[in-house]
């Protein structure tokens, strides 16, 4: 039998995220580790370098509002139809966090470069944008195979940690993510990956041809913690939907710091109740 991933409690899992760490997180609804995010806020994390793959909503807004974030690299932070991300917008305007604006395919391309162990990658587009003008860490180079053909060079994105939530792990700590294969790329690209899951099942997903293709092997995972409804109040495809009422209240109330504190308390209270 192969070495298994380490199973951990939520608190043990977030202790593996030191202050100042760079963390990749997925899009709202694609498996956001919201319960772990609350545990991270309870731990009082500071100075995180948050990288959204490629955009975020509630998770980024909570971490920013709770003072955990020094910098965010993102293609967008929004609550979609519910409205703008209040703590993100406030922090950007006040200059209390550093923002590195990017574009979705750049993030994916940089993660793919990292998972291959390559130093950089190139991407079409982006030329002539103010994204490029504000990214001294990006470069414009000549296509070596077609001189004069300019392309944007982007450094590999090797985060300290990838953090996400998935439907299930097996007894060996392999994690099934199904078609959400950006999670697989994130896990490959990061130095280590911390995952929460709805449930832990007996046996090995790798013994089942249908499950194996959608599975992240335990080798990539630093810790796996069980967290039932671990994405709520966000949804998890095939399991549960978003808490519509919460998100509607949040975008309104979290425009003030006091309102944000109340919404955070509401989530913490619900998390405590779920743990008991």
């Amino acid at each position, binding site marked *: 039998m192969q070495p298994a991933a380490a199973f951990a409690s939520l608190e043990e899992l977030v202790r593996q995220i030191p202050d100042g760490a760079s963390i990749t997180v*997925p*899009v709202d*609804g*694609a498996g956001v580790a919201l319960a772990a995010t609350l545990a991270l806020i309870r731990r009082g994390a500071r100075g995180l370098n948050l990288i959204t*793959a*490629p*955009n975020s909503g509630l998770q980024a807004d909570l971490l920013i509002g709770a003072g955990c974030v020094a910098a965010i690299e*993102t*293609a*967008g*932070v*929004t609550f*979609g*139809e519910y409205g*703008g*991300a209040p703590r*993100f*917008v406030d922090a*950007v*305007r*006040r*200059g209390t966090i*550093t*923002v590195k*604006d*990017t*574009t*979705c*395919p*750049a993030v*994916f391309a940089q993660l793919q470069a990292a998972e291959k162990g390559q130093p950089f990658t190139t*991407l*079409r*587009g*982006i*030329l*002539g*944008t*103010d*994204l490029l003008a*504000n990214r001294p860490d990006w470069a414009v180079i000549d296509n070596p195979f077609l001189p*004069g*053909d*300019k*392309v944007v060079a982007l450094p590999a994105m090797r985060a300290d940690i990838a953090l996400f939530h998935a439907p299930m792990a097996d007894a060996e700590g392999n994690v099934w993510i199904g*078609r*959400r*294969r*950006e*999670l*697989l*790329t994130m896990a490959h690209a990061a130095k280590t990956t911390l995952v929460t899951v709805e449930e832990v099942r007996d046996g090995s997903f790798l013994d089942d041809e249908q499950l194996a293709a959608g599975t992240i092997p335990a080798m990539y995972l630093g810790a796996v913690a069980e967290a039932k409804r671990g994405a709520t109040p966000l949804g998890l*495809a095939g399991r549960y939907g978003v808490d519509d009422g919460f998100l509607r209240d949040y975008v309104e109330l979290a425009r003030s710091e006091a309102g944000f504190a109340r919404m955070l308390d509401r989530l913490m209270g619900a998390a405590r109740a779920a743990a008991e």
Partner: protein
Amino acid sequence: MSDIAYTTKELLISVIAPLLAGCRHVACGASSPIPGSAALLTRMRSHGQMRVTVLGSQKNNFFTNGNGELFDVAGTGRLDTFFLGGGQIDGQANINLVGAGGTYPRNDVRWPGSFGSAYLYFVVPKVILFREEHTRRVFVPKVDFISAPGVSEPGIYRPGGPRHLVTNLALFDFDPARVRFVLKSVHPGHSVEEVLDNTGFDFDRPDVVPETPAPDAATLAALRGTIRREIAETYPRFAETAFAA
């Protein structure tokens, strides 16, 4: 023409739908129920020739390689049409999804971010700009931040770009050679003067600007039946309110 009453959203769907005719694959991003409905309507009329990707949908999203697959599909020429908007759009079709006023990054108004625009605007052959609000706040002489440029210098790889602009007031084409919008039609109940008053940049127009045709009875029946049901899967609240009867 039809004398059946219709909603503004039904009109906009019926304005966008013909722009998609002949496309093999149309994709609509997040928070795009009107483009999504137009794509589903055109698919229905395509007799099985057109594929539609509605981001956020389960039924109308066939991607199995994660969120990044949309960009890979676009980069390899498998996506004909995409929709983009902007907090600001200028007369050269530059779009700004980042922020306005003040100095970046500390803009007075901060929007979510550029998402995939900086890439899709270059590689998708037909990008349709869609913004319901038609005011000088949106349609500015020059955007404060270029999330994606309307045109590129010669020699830059750019098979794609803006082709049309649809708003609550009018339909424009974009002429990439002249780097200008051309007013094609003004929606019923609105005037060329209203469009001029509410647009902060110059654009071309014919001597006589046609009125946008109202949706016909068959279109309205399709919207209020099949399309309402199909779009409700992703946008339930929109489906409840956007359609008459």
